[in-house]
């Protein structure tokens, strides 16, 4: 399975990426538009999501229903989402219809109707998502952590706020669309079975004339630290914890990623062993890397019944700091095997690859190929990981608890800024 990632930047700034996977029957694309929540005007939290919803209610010569039916007719599995940086549209389909689906999404980002008569319905839909989040305390603790750790404009959550959504009028949607749905900063990443020349032609024809100015500059991110509690009548206390690490853009990212892997990748990982297997404190516990505005954080989650929450937090912190006692050869070997086999599993999914190459391009401005990743993984050693840990001791903790009892970071962890 030869891997190549093809790239073309159009005159209007749009970046097209392609990873041919000719052994598949499918094709998939991820279309990132620089219209994330960090570009929402203050007070209009939820506008990015509302605008994304409105763009899907008809475009060019198709009304809302005809657009949906056309995609169903073609057999397209689709989703849309909003992150801090982007509004994103993702589709997977039998490869033969890619040429029919791309022009539909080209219309969506350039010529949506944004029908004024439907803004009430679209807003209701967004409010449904927000209310659903209130019934999911394990997700809600991450939303609260984002709001707490990252000041504006970075801390907004994709669902917005009730007050913000109620303030979003038709004009605000039109303006947000005009300012942020633009080729400069947009990434269209295609993976699966397709012909690159034919793809370039389709994209040139349907998106080559897309116009729009560059976007606004964002302020520098300064994270907030400490603890916050959200009172909630629930069986479990849900803990979300964050601390600093190097970001995705850093040449040392694989060291940080590997340390998080030792903590959380697989059933023999330290968090799973110490918190769940040995002590039975939780059903779910994990850690993951997250990067925003050039800053990296490790995010951890544990959900446990309230009486055992304090012990769970204490074991969680101890386990994180146990990385400083060293990483065994065996742990590292398991980790390397997991990463290597994951790279092969990715080759079975056009959707997974289209999403990965779009993300790589956003963070790095290029797509590392499999050989490069394998080389970086092979270079990891127990010594290099320990050295990385001692140079990047976890610090600047933020803790959010959702449940019936507040937890504080123990002495030595709170406000441990440097």
């Amino acid at each position, binding site marked *: 399975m030869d891997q190549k990632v093809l790239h073309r930047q159009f005159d209007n700034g749009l970046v097209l990426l392609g990873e041919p996977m000719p*052994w*598949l*029957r*499918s094709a998939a694309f991820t279309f990132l538009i620089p219209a994330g929540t960090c570009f929402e005007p203050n007070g209009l939290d939820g506008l990015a999501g509302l605008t994304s919803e409105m763009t899907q209610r008809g475009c060019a010569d198709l009304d809302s229903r005809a657009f*949906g*039916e056309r*995609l*169903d*007719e*073609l*057999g*397209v*599995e*689709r989703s849309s989402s909003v992150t801090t940086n982007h509004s994103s549209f993702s589709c997977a*389909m*039998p490869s033969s219809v890619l040429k029919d689906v791309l022009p539909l999404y080209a219309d969506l980002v350039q010529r949506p109707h944004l029908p004024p008569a439907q803004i009430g*319905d*679209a807003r*209701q*839909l*967004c*409010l*449904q*998502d927000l*209310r*659903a989040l209130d*019934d*999911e*305390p*394990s997700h809600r603790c991450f939303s609260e952590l984002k709001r707490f750790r990252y000041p504006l404009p970075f801390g907004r959550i994709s669902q917005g706020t009730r007050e913000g959504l109620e303030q979003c009028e038709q004009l605000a949607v039109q303006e947000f669309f005009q300012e942020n749905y633009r080729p400069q900063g947009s990434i269209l990443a295609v993976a699966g079975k397709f012909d690159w020349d034919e793809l370039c032609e389709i994209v040139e024809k349907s998106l080559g004339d897309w116009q729009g100015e560059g976007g606004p500059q964002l302020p520098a991110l300064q994270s907030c630290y400490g603890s916050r509690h959200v009172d909630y*009548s*629930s*069986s*479990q206390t*849900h803990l979300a914890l964050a601390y600093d690490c190097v970001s995705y853009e850093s040449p040392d990212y694989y060291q940080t990623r590997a340390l998080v892997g030792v903590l959380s990748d697989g*059933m*023999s*990982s330290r968090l*799973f*062993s110490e918190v*769940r*297997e*040995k002590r*039975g*404190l*939780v*059903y779910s516990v994990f850690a993951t890397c997250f990067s925003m505005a050039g800053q990296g954080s490790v995010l951890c989650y544990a*959900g*446990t*019944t309230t009486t055992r929450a304090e012990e769970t937090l204490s074991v969680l912190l101890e386990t994180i700091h146990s990385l400083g006692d060293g990483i065994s050869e065996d742990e590292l*070997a*398991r980790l390397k*095997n*997991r990463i*290597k*086999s994951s790279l092969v*599993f990715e*080759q*079975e*999914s056009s959707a997974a690859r289209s999403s990965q190459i779009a993300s790589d391009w956003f963070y790095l401005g290029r797509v590392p190929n499999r050989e490069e990743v394998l080389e970086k993984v092979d270079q990891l050693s127990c010594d290099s990981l320990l050295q990385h840990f001692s140079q990047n001791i976890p610090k600047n903790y933020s803790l959010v608890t959702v449940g019936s009892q507040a937890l504080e970071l123990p002495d030595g962890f709170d406000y441990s800024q440097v």
Partner: protein
Amino acid sequence: MDLITHKSSDGPEIVVLNDPSAFTSSFGCFVKTGARDEQPEIAGVSHFLEHMVFKGTLRRSAEDVNRELDHLGAHSNAFTSEDATVFYASVLPECQEHAVDLLTDLMQPTLEEEKFETEKQVVLEEIAMYDDQPPYGAFERATELFFGDHPLSTRVLGTTESVADLSVAQMRAYHSQRYTQDNVYVVACGKIEVPQLIEQVSKVAEGWGKTAGGLDVPAPEFGSGKETLERELAHQSYMVRLWPGLNCNDPDRYALRMLCSILADDSGSRLFWELIDTGRAETAILWPQMFADCGCITGYLCCAPGDAESNEEIVNRVIDEIVAKGVTEKEMELARNKIEAGLILSDERPSNRLFALGQSWLARKNYEPIDAVLSRYRNVTAADIQRLAEQTINVDSVTVRVAGEELA
């Protein structure tokens, strides 16, 4: 792709869909046992046992099991349903021997008491976690009302009480009756060395016992009626409905899936345009659940508490319309295209194919390749769908609502 099956006199049946061009290999042990095979006093034992399977065998400690799975770079997990417990691992082809040795060894866990007590806490945390998600409880209660005395009314997780009271001796007895050479199926998809697999499984499974026989199952008598569960913390209103459906071998099952797709899947269905596109509800879906002897259609509606009543009326109106007037050719075409694309996309990965093959084998000892399945959908007529609508969603249902805070 070749379908190969093998059954020796004293080993589990082996079912393989071999694709020499695949990059990966997926293996599963499908145990034909689940909540419906439990007596009331051991409710939740199948699911708890699924956890305990990873807690050590005669040849491996619990730590060895976890370390080896990670060393294999395996994508692995397990799940329990009403009628099956499934353990699976996807690995690179060169890891076949180790993966098969590990998976088959897991089928005979030692079930040590100390591990049992620790893991009981994890299962109780799992129940507490779901208990914080308000629809939880509504599906379970609806199932109890619908199936009545039939064992399909058993909750897959059990209850906090039934799990807390469960003893290791009860679990050992259940295991010895259910994890047997004639009740476990070894299923493999992707790039597989078939002769090696057959030889290896036969050797490992030599000492496995035989099944004594399952529960006596009464014929199902479906219940109907309404109940409301008050939940202090629910912000949304949730409604679960169950109607009579079809068993997993009914030839009308393709038509039933199309009916559910046209009526209430998550894009472009009648309820999507009525309730989701208009922002009236967050979710409004129907799907069929099929078991060996019977089945049901499950409906799920989630919306703001103040809209629950009017939304329920809309659901009833849409159902009445489809029963009275049937579906259009255009709706049939769209539903077929959606189902077809979904099957093609899902069939791409050996790990997905593993579930389709395993579940099909457990249900009917048969597997139809994707093109044959697609032609079954093409043969469904609008008259079939209307007839099914009359037989299923036109019958009295069980309804369980979880009242959100504005209602309570």
